[in-house]
């Protein structure tokens, strides 16, 4: 990846993180899971997807992104805002019933392909879209992002079986492998490793990358085989860090859902920019 592009992507990612941090005030958000998939979201929308954002009428030839792990919607809205497809002021309406921005993706926000929140649903919905794209002879790419904790849901594996039976090689499932489910490390509750082997055993074409490294993201997505209707679905396991960018909350089991005060948000923004060591131990942290 050329340097100017890398710098631009990194700078967008930084601003998306600022949006996420601000959305953790006034009621809070699932900050950890949002921060872990920022590079993924920014890369996909800025560089990879032929998305339908900003179009008057949706184009059936567009690529699709489905956010199955719903909690990370601040990363999606932050990316929309940075790309100019969502008025950043609306992010301030987070959790206001006067707007449509809440803790999970909402199709009322232009660009959100489908709502989610209940885990293990969107792999199937994405498979249905992938099937139709193939029936119409389109070269659309369909990407669905799941959490790693979400892989506890049997419906994910059910859909992987079916997608491979139907040879939906235009479908790519990305696992945001941030090592945590809601309250504990995945490996301490329902161990997933060796995860790549599991997907391979199901017949998937698997790659595992550092999900915070734009060059690796580019290589993985640009390296996806041309869909021919003959192969298995693609899986990209993106190794990430929950809470990435804020050392004070990174990889902590108790930093799943956080509701910060306005003052704490300011401290975290300082921390994001590396200006100050911040460790917030306040009781205002809400862990749901």
């Amino acid at each position: 990846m050329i340097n100017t592009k890398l710098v631009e992507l990194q700078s967008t990612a930084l601003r998306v993180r600022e949006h996420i941090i601000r959305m953790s005030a006034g009621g809070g958000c699932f900050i950890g899971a949002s921060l872990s998939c920022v590079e993924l979201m920014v890369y996909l929308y800025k560089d990879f997807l032929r998305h339908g954002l900003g179009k008057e009428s949706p184009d059936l030839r567009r690529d699709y992104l489905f956010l199955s792990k719903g909690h990370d919607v601040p990363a999606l809205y932050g990316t929309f805002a940075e790309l100019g497809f969502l008025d950043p002021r609306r992010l301030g309406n987070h959790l206001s019933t006067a707007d449509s921005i809440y803790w999970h993706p909402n199709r009322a926000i232009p660009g959100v392909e489908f709502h989610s929140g209940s885990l293990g649903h969107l792999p199937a919905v994405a498979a249905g879209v992938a099937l139709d794209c193939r029936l119409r002879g389109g070269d659309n790419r369909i990407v669905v992002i799941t959490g790693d904790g979400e892989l506890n849901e049997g419906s994910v594996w059910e859909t992987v079986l079916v997608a491979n039976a139907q040879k939906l090689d235009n479908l790519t499932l990305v696992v945001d492998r941030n090592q945590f489910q809601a309250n504990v490390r995945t490996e301490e509750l329902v161990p997933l490793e060796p995860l790549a082997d599991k997907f391979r055993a199901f017949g998937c074409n698997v790659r595992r990358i550092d999900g915070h490294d734009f060059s690796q993201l580019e290589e993985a997505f640009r390296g996806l085989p041309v869909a021919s209707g003959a192969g298995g679905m693609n899986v990209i396991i993106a190794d990430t860090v929950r809470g990435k960018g804020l050392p004070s909350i990174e990889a902590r089991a108790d930093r799943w859902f956080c509701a910060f005060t306005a003052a704490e948000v300011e401290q975290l923004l300082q921390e994001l920019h590396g200006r100050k060591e911040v460790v917030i131990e306040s009781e205002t942290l809400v862990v749901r």
Partner: protein
Amino acid sequence: MTYEELLIETALADERIIVMTAENRALVRNAPKVLGSRFVDTGITEQTLVGMAAGLALRGRIPIIHALAPFLTMRAFEFIRTDVGIAHLPVKLSGYIPGLLSDGNGPTHQSIEDVAIMRGIPGMEVYCPADEDDLVRSLPAIWSSDAPAYVRINHKKGEYTHASFERGRAEVVAEGTDVTILVYGYLFGNALKAQRILQQEGLSVGLVNMRSLKPVDEAEIIRAAKRSRMLVTIEDHLLTGGLYSIVAEVLLKYGVTVRTLPLALEERWFKPGLLTEVLETEGFTPEKIAGKIYSSSNLLYAE
């Protein structure tokens, strides 16, 4: 015309239709060779079936999906509610062997709460045809609408020739001043025979095929309540949440009171066996239905 003939004819005429099944091929045996890639069997995967149908509908398709009624409505319930319901997508659910039609399968296969749970989903329509004739008269309107719909598939041949179908309208077979029987689905045939028995006994008995349970024909329920001294609801469904509940809701809404006798399954699964035996054991033969109504109407007149 059979269900499958209508399905294939409709699918051939409309490219938007995708016929899907979770490996329940009883009603769609010939669809694969005729429809090719527009026939999709996902295997024994009701959740994925419904989720994929939602994805196909997002792209402008009208998926008509098949599975045994209990597994479709209960195993995949949250997918129906969350993916089809919230997005209000035109996914058409065909539930096979609902109610008593599961005959010898046992309680795992008894779909006797499907009307209750499907009508609880905002925007979901619920249809319960009386027999094959009623089924094929109903489906074109159901499949061509923009709404998600659950159909309690009843492909059994009946003896009655039904009137044309309209969503939200009941079919009035007969009017009566003593009793009106409200019925849907497979028990329509026996209710019709029971009505004839009661007429011979000198009672004036009406019969209404409810067919469209959501939207329901409120006006016809109110008319029946005002026309006769007693209503009877007959259903191969739990007492809770089905037709008896619907009638109670409608009567309360309009402030109309009428004595109503429910014939339904009360708080239990039915004893499995050959359908003819099940009807006998559960008291759903024409004679037993007529007997219960007759006794109840006698009580009414004694008051």
